[in-house]
């Protein structure tokens, strides 16, 4: 796949309903963009899964399936990286309140592994309040230099 020329940034934005189908859409959408950016199949899978986990958090925990709240997905592709921003319109949450899923006492918990996967698969992860309300997650994956 052709990469954007040096210095050139291509950006796509979409707004999704707070339903589980949006999670699949977000994943498919970002995999497509990751392919265009030049990531290989394994990297596309990792980026797709990271975005899937973020989209689940936005739909389920952030917007709580609200028909009036949206998920905001922005994807920026440059010659060196793919940057994905996923925002919800929920109440926000404290990252530090989440239990460590790798602690022995938490290994058998049913949930709580999404952020671990996101952090493992992406190079940068940042979570902050979304302007106007809600939470925004910014993910970056750098392209290996060819």
């Amino acid at each position, binding site marked *: 796949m052709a990469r954007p020329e040096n210095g050139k940034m291509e950006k796509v934005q979409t707004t999704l309903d707070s339903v*589980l189908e949006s*999670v699949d859409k977000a994943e498919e959408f970002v995999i497509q963009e990751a392919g265009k950016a030049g990531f290989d199949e394994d990297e596309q*899978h990792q980026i797709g*899964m990271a975005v*899937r*986990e973020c989209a*689940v958090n936005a739909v*389920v925990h952030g917007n709580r399936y609200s028909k009036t709240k949206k998920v905001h997905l922005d994807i920026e592709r440059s010659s060196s990286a793919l940057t994905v921003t996923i925002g919800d319109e929920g109440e926000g949450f404290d990252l530090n309140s989440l239990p460590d*899923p*790798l602690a022995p006492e938490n*290994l*058998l*918990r*049913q*949930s709580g*592994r*999404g952020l*671990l*996967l996101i952090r*493992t698969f992406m190079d940068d992860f940042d979570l902050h309040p979304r302007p106007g309300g809600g939470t925004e997650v910014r993910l970056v994956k750098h392209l290996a230099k060819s």
Partner: protein
Amino acid sequence: MSAKLTSRQVGDVTVIDAAGRITLGDGASSFRDTIRDLAAKGNKKLLLNLADVSYIDSSGIGEMVSGFTTVTNNGGQLKLLGLSKRVKDLLQITKLYTVFEVFDDETTAIRSFH
């Protein structure tokens, strides 16, 4: 394609052949229902064959852990068979390799229950 699960009996071991995607929604819930149903019917030796599973997300992993807990609390065992590299990687990342017994070969897996 969401998850499709079928079970078969090999001696006293119940092999659950899973296929498709085990993700939040239908995939994970049908997975949960199948394991709970088999455990409730008294099946104590369960081998989960993931060879045809193309994708598992954190919800799918959660259902596997939940199934493991359900079966173990019932006095049984749940073991895994035929993991793809991607699923193996997920178990490494989440440290669940330390929880599940994992096999590449069905005969060896069946034998391990005895």
